[in-house]
């Protein structure tokens, strides 16, 4: 398995415990939602073959204007947003989200998060976060997550 070409794009350094405080905001990340992201997220990444995520005719018949992001992709985008920020010494220990406005092609998904709690427990250092991904038509999802690393 050769992944040398990926290495420049991977993140090897991690967020330092002393460099984070409650109330810190993560850098905003914007991602364009297009049909490719919807279809590849559902079919390639998550093996979710439910047709409203890859077949516009089926989505329209179900009352939607277009195909829309599946929840596995939304969850994956949010999880990776957080772990791309904190780096590989941290583990995502929980993530919870509620879907609001569906994400359709042509929208921009703008994700933000805030550290709500910084604490130690059972030999681990933990951060609780709240996150939100906004579309032009309102929030696509809102949720909470916890990351941890050995103390």
């Amino acid at each position, binding site marked *: *398995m050769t*992944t040398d070409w*990926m*290495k420049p*794009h*991977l*993140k*090897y350094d991690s967020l330092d415990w002393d460099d984070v405080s409650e109330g810190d905001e993560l850098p905003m990340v914007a991602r364009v939602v297009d049909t490719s*992201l919807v279809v*590849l*997220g559902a079919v*390639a*990444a*998550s*093996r*979710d*073959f*439910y047709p*409203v995520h890859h077949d516009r005719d089926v989505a329209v018949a*179900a*009352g939607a204007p277009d195909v829309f992001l*599946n*929840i*596995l*992709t939304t*969850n*994956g*985008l*949010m*999880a*990776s947003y957080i*772990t*791309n920020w904190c780096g*590989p010494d941290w*583990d*995502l*220990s*929980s*993530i*919870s*989200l*509620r*879907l609001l406005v*569906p994400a359709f092609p042509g929208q921009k998904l703008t994700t933000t998060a805030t550290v709500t709690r910084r604490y130690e427990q059972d030999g681990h250092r933990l951060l609780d976060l709240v996150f939100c991904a906004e579309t032009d038509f309102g929030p696509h999802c809102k949720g909470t997550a916890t990351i941890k690393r*050995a103390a």
Partner: protein
Amino acid sequence: MGTLYEDRLRQHIGNESEPIEAVDAVCPQMIRHWVEIMEDRNPAYSDPEWAGTSRHGGLVAPGSMMQVWSMAPHWPERPLPDLPFAPVDEALEEAGYTEIVATEQSQTITALAKVGEPVTFTVRLTDVSDSEHKTRLGEAYFVTFEYRFSDPRGDLLGTQSFTYMRYRPQTEDTEEPAA
């Protein structure tokens, strides 16, 4: 309080499937499909050299990806033990709640699945709404179930709670006439 109809749906709450082994063992190919779409930069998923000397002891799959190992094949249909939400699903579909949309999910990640190891999971029905809800898309019921994912030694990898809504799509016929 639920009616007789809802009581019939809710009698299945607590039912759990037999353990089901995922079709594919955790593999770098499926991980990479995930990583490429999510643009995930964690070397634990993509750099065998780094992962091998890390606390993971080798390449692992993202915890956020756990449900992917449970997804049904496109063809042919895979015979599965009776899933606990199937009778609820069928009853709602027959009653006209024909469309499904996911609304909520929550994952607790205990350990990361290792490349080469198969994942086993169970599914348990944890809730069905006790009354019909009026939603933007139409009248709906919410169904919640929980997956538990384990490694080949029986150790827990994580749990995932998942809620979907089954709704009766709104058509012009069902809309209130304008006053």
